[in-house]
């Protein structure tokens, strides 16, 4: 009860900060005041979440009903283990973004377009987690969408941003509509909007299937599941970088929370094909997301596409949990769900870090185009190091955290032979293969991104003159980087912290890991598999030190200066380096030919002309072309057809009304 009161007070504080941001528009230090207040509120909410997780077993859920909102409903609030976990994830990311904002926000040309919405956005996300009835859930969900939309539109002078905002608004509205219908079905014809009555409801197979599909559409469109992801790579990069970090790292987690809340908690027993659907959608999302990230030239869009991939990985974990749960394999289901939640936490950490890094690059060079960056490791060494940490974590390299959660997901995949259904028996190993492909492509993607941005020689004057960013931004980047390392070294305590959340959903949890020596984790049995991040880290560190020492001692002690090998290109132009397009060419030729319609053409000059030959690369977003582009065409065509009805004679109008009435009456007469 008290913890919920503290959480509510913090959320109210965030709202107050929003108003303060408007009221203090003349104050020169407004930026610092607003972001510091937001960071404080996030700390409080984070503490509430962590305390609830720490004291989880046995403690009753905190419940509260506020007499505001709809007159006979009020606002029901509740904090259980699931909301507490996501409260912790979200406010950790929110805290980082607020600290980053203190430094980054100084460079904002029109802070008035970001500052009032930033705390409101955080408040909206927190309210979604605490909502315990459909009405307040939807209102907070919509509030969150609108607040983030306002910040996406902060740089509305650019036509691309306006388009992104438009697409985002449409998709957010569509997703909310799907969620509204989901809750309508969950409540049933006589139902109540409170979650507690929804949980008690029984659903036949058809309505359970509809609820699942609608929840997947509603939450998936916010999370960025293919094919509902179209808005994400447009909108996330368009916002200021700390907001991008929030949207990509944190808001997608709210969507994951929404899906878990509806499908695992409220729905009760999902239909038998639920796991199949979620697994297929998750794997398609993972591969398509990372493939498009690999092809992308814009650094922030690349990160947004990589978010789509990680959402795919999380949904694969959720699909596995559904599959095991339906076959009464609670231990395996607990493992899969733990993997999904752990990955949600990890993704929020390293995606925030990477977006902060891209924001730092943007501040230093005003460039997002990979082909205009390069060599930043010399001018921005700290950012480069931290970005490297983030890239390693997202590429799932041990001993960082990304590896742990993906490894856990693979452990769950490896349990699939025990599933009785043949459909799942066949599908799950394929999903495992897809997951491995996505992980490998993600590594390639970040090798390319990091290599082009930070290594080599600068490709533009702006990149050559870059300077390191301010210390607030750096501090904000150090925190998630450290947490990435810690979560990778000591995954046991984190798995145990997730335990109560998993238990509240599945009814079982993974074996307690903290008691094992040397922070080893053993998901199922020691004979099967175990992982020790700390030992891996020590091994890597010690072997590297030894190798360096050996090389220095036995190979050559003297420092020699010699001309660098020029790879056979004596021309010093930076154009001779790998470009963004050439670095991804091998993978593009293998995978993107059919999936993304990649077409390479070389235009030769006419004989005798001294013009250079030109290489052109065309990529098509197949999903956009097949699903989204026809929509306006169909609307325009049908509008043209309906246009005729605007020029009827009075008698024809009367006849229309008459015909409609008669047809409706006929329908009524025929209706059984």
């Amino acid at each position, binding site marked *: 009860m008290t913890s919920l009161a503290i959480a509510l007070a913090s959320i109210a504080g965030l709202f107050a900060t929003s108003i303060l941001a408007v009221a203090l528009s003349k104050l020169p230090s407004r930026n610092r005041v607003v972001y510091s207040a937001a960071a404080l509120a996030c700390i409080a909410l984070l503490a509430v979440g962590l305390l609830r997780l720490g004291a989880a077993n046995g403690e009753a859920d905190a419940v509260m009903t506020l007499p505001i909102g709809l007159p006979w409903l009020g606002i029901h609030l509740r904090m259980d283990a699931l909301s507490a976990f996501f409260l912790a994830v979200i406010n950790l990311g929110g805290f980082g973004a607020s600290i980053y904002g203190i430094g980054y926000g100084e460079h904002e040309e029109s802070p008035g377009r970001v500052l009032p919405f930033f705390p409101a956005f955080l408040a909206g996300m927190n309210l979604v987690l605490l909502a315990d009835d459909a009405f307040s859930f939807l209102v907070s969900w919509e509030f969150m969408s609108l607040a983030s939309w306002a910040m996406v539109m902060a740089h509305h002078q650019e036509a691309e941003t306006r388009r992104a905002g438009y697409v985002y608004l449409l998709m957010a509205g569509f997703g909310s509509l799907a969620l509204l219908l989901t809750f309508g079905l969950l409540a049933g014809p006589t139902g109540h909007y409170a979650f507690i009555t929804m949980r008690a409801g029984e659903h036949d197979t058809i309505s359970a299937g509809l609820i699942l599909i609608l929840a997947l559409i509603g939450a998936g469109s916010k999370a960025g599941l293919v094919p509902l992801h179209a808005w994400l790579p447009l909108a996330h990069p368009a916002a200021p970088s700390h907001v991008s970090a929030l949207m990509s790292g944190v808001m997608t987690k709210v969507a994951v929370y929404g899906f878990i809340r509806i499908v695992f908690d409220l729905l009760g027993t999902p239909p038998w094909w639920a796991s199949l659907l979620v697994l297929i959608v998750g794997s398609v999302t993972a591969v398509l997301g990372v493939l498009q990230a690999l092809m992308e030239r814009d650094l922030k869009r690349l990160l947004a596409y990589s978010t789509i991939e990680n959402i795919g990985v999380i949904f694969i974990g959720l699909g596995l949990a559904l599959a095991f749960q339906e076959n009464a394999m609670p231990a395996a289901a607990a493992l899969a769900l733990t993997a999904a939640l752990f990955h949600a936490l990890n993704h929020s950490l390293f995606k925030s870090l990477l977006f902060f890094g891209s924001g730092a690059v943007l501040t230093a060079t005003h460039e997002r185009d990979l082909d205009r960056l390069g060599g930043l490791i010399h001018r921005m060494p700290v950012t480069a190091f931290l970005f490297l940490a983030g890239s390693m974590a997202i590429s799932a390299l041990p001993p960082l955290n990304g590896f742990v959660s993906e490894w856990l997901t693979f452990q769950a995949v490896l349990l699939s032979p025990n599933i009785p259904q043949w459909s799942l028996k066949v599908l799950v190993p394929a999903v495992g293969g897809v997951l491995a492909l996505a992980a490998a492509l993600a590594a390639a993607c970040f090798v390319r991104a990091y290599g082009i941005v930070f290594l080599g020689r600068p490709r533009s004057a702006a990149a050559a003159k870059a300077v390191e960013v301010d210390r607030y931004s750096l501090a904000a980047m150090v925190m998630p980087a450290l947490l990435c390392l810690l979560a990778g070294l000591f995954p046991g305590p984190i798995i145990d912290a997730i335990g109560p959340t998993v238990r509240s959903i599945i009814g079982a949890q993974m074996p307690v890991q903290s008691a094992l020596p040397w922070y080893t984790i053993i998901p199922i049995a020691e004979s099967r598999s175990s992982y020790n991040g700390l030992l891996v880290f020590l091994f890597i560190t010690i072997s590297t030190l030894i190798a360096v020492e050996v090389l220095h001692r036995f190979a050559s002690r003297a420092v020699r200066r010699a001309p660098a090998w020029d790879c056979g290109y004596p021309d010093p132009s930076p154009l001779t380096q790998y470009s963004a397009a050439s670095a991804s060419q091998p993978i593009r030729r293998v995978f993107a030919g059919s999936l993304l319609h990649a077409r390479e053409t070389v235009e030769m000059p006419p004989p005798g002309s001294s013009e250079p030959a030109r290489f052109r690369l065309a990529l098509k977003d197949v999903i956009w072309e097949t699903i989204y582009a026809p929509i306006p065409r169909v609307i325009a065509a049908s509008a043209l057809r309906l246009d005729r009805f605007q*020029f009827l*004679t*009075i*008698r024809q109008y*009367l*006849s229309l*009304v*008459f015909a409609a*009435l*008669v047809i409706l*009456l*006929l329908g*009524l*007469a025929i209706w059984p």
Partner: protein
Amino acid sequence: MNGLALDIAHLLAGSMVLVSFLLLYQDRMFALLNIFALQAIVLSASIAWQAYIQDAPHLYVPALIALLLKGIVIPLALRRVVIKLGIHREIETVVGIGPTMLLGIGLVALSMVIMLKATSTADPLAREDLAFALSVLLLGLLMMVTRRNAVSQIIGFMSLENGLILAATGAKGMPLVVEISIAFSVLVAFIVIGIFLFRIRERFDTVELEALDASRGERP
């Protein structure tokens, strides 16, 4: 409530439908007005009978209004309009009389089916009455759709409204205010439409609706 009372109520309501068919069939202006007056008188009788058998004296008021307003005032006024406009010639119908009658029979059948099905638990008196009322309403609408002349469209509209009143009085316990307000709204509509008729005539020298379409620019 005895069987005879029910039978008479049915007779009157059924006569309304019959008169609606007469309206549909009639293609001369003055005869049309006379039949409309007849329908109003039958309506008035029906309301009065309902007032008697439901023991609801307040229903005599709408009966009186229907008799005076629709049975006498509106037909006389329309007759003057027709004479003034000089359109007491034959009415052209869009669809032939035969198909229109067939369509009308179909509509009556439809409203019977629907009403008998939808109100299976209701009071039998109200049931039959509602079915007849819906028939009158649909026939009025059919008349509006099939006629070209503005005056006969007014008649169609008024007959549609007669169907509404029949339904309203057939149901027990409908407040008086509803019936009276319907009656007066029709009077207002009549005045407005009447004024418009003259305005249209002034401007286009005809009350055929096609002339209006031409002025909206759809036809050359």
